[in-house]
């Protein structure tokens, strides 16, 4: 069924898996067919999947891209839910609520994307829809890098960093690119985003972050997935997942 919200609404439904394939070590790319979800989906939004196998609550995944009547997600196997999901096959169905969350705002100017690990997912989708800029993508290990060279076709300069082999993190190099950019978009581990928020605040750059927190319903009802902001706890699922960096209260991170 479709449910209405102020920003376009979402579907509670099941959809067909068109393909699932490995994208890197323990990381899978899944293509899900649902024309209406795809047409509503905006960068920064996520899908909330019931993985089955006796799990009790859904699992959130950012939308990695959309093409025609499909959306794609990319996920790392970390526990029971993602393990079950990784065993799904082409033609199976997946139970999902989507698209959810506020998504990234549309900002004019030259963007700098800073992705850490699976944070690449929402930024990949966003970068397909913006002006040309710089895309920095860092992972811990080499076998975790998922191929995003295709972004060069959108005119972005793509910088891929691997901490294990290069000994550097995205936060070590982002300042080199900051002056040439008008706005920063970031997603990844909380500690990384905290650092990025500090850098942007200091340099007075606009910055938007996609935040993660353990989530319940995904539709704003249970108040589980909160992040602390300067105006109190906000729900990642409906007030976010994207927050302006200056609104987040990082004291507890």
């Amino acid at each position: 069924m479709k449910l209405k919200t102020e920003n376009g609404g979402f579907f509670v439904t099941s959809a067909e898996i068109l393909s699932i394939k490995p994208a890197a070590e323990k990381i899978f790319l899944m293509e899900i067919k649902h024309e209406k979800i795809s047409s509503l989906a905006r960068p920064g939004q996520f899908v909330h999947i019931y993985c089955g196998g006796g799990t009790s609550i859904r699992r959130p995944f950012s939308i990695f891209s959309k093409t025609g009547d499909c959306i794609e997600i990319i996920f790392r196997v970390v526990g029971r839910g993602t393990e079950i999901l990784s065993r799904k096959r082409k033609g199976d169905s997946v139970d999902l609520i989507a698209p959810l969350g506020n998504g990234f705002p549309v900002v004019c100017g030259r963007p700098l994307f800073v992705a850490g690990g699976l944070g690449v997912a929402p930024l990949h989708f966003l970068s397909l829809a913006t002006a040309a800029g710089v895309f920095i993508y860092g992972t811990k290990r080499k076998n975790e890098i998922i191929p995003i060279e295709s972004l060069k076709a959108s005119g972005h300069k793509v910088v891929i960093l691997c901490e294990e082999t290069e000994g550097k993190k995205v936060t070590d190099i982002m300042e080199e690119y900051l002056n040439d950019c008008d706005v920063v978009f970031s997603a990844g581990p909380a500690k990384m985003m905290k650092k990025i928020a500090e850098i942007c605040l200091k340099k007075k750059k606009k910055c938007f972050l996609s935040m993660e927190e353990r989530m319940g319903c995904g539709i704003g009802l249970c108040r589980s997935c909160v992040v602390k902001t300067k105006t109190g706890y906000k729900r990642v699922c409906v007030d976010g997942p994207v927050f302006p960096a200056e609104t987040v209260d990082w004291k507890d991170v």
Partner: protein
Amino acid sequence: MYDTVRFAGLEIKNPFIAASGCFGYGWEFPALSEKFGAVVAKTITVKPREGNSPPRIFEVPGGVINRVGLQNCGLKNFAEKHLPRLKKIGTTVIVSIFGENFRQWAELIGTLEKEVAALELNLSCPNLNKQILTKNPEKCGNIVEKLRKLTDKPLIAKINAVDSPAAVSSLLSDRGIDAIVCSNTIPARVELNGRIYKGGLSGRLIKNFVLKAIREIRKKSDVPIAACGGIRGLKDVDDYRKAGADVFVLGSVLLRQPDILPLEKNIDSEGDIV
């Protein structure tokens, strides 16, 4: 497709109720709320509460542990912004409340009683840095007795399945409570990244505790009972009906399947809808 039922002096259009805390303030998705016989809004306190710092929700095999900590917008905001919208939905409106002392309970009842069909007293929230009220039945009974005098609207007591539910139910019924909801979440602990968190357990893991509690309550008293604990399919409803429950409250299953009504399907042993 369901018959109307009488519960706590109310006539509700079907026996399914959305649990407090699992369905927001009850009005957010009218198309979902309408399907319920009644909707219980999130527990409201006199002052706004910001709740606990995250993480607030954990999955364990067969259940969910939450430590939301009664985050809510406070009585004034609720009455002004949320209640008018909730009342527009075609379902029976119940509001859950929690007071830290008699004055607060009285203020909550005074402000809300004319606007709602019934009030649910949350006597069993495990996520407060205080003792759960029902652990002290005599004190609980005294509060209820005093609150009873403040309103003619039905008062429903939310208790849990582990703190002498039968004795507490009989006592509260004698002091004027119109119905019992059993159960709130059950106090539990969970570890994450080397830290231990205290929270409340819900879901199919608690069903057997709640079933047992309801059988015991029913043996001692004919107070109307709303069963709440791990309900996900027809078999659960059937089991609770046989144990003596009158209506059925859907809790954490709504986090997974907010559109679960009409409850037509069953759930396999792993918890998947079949």
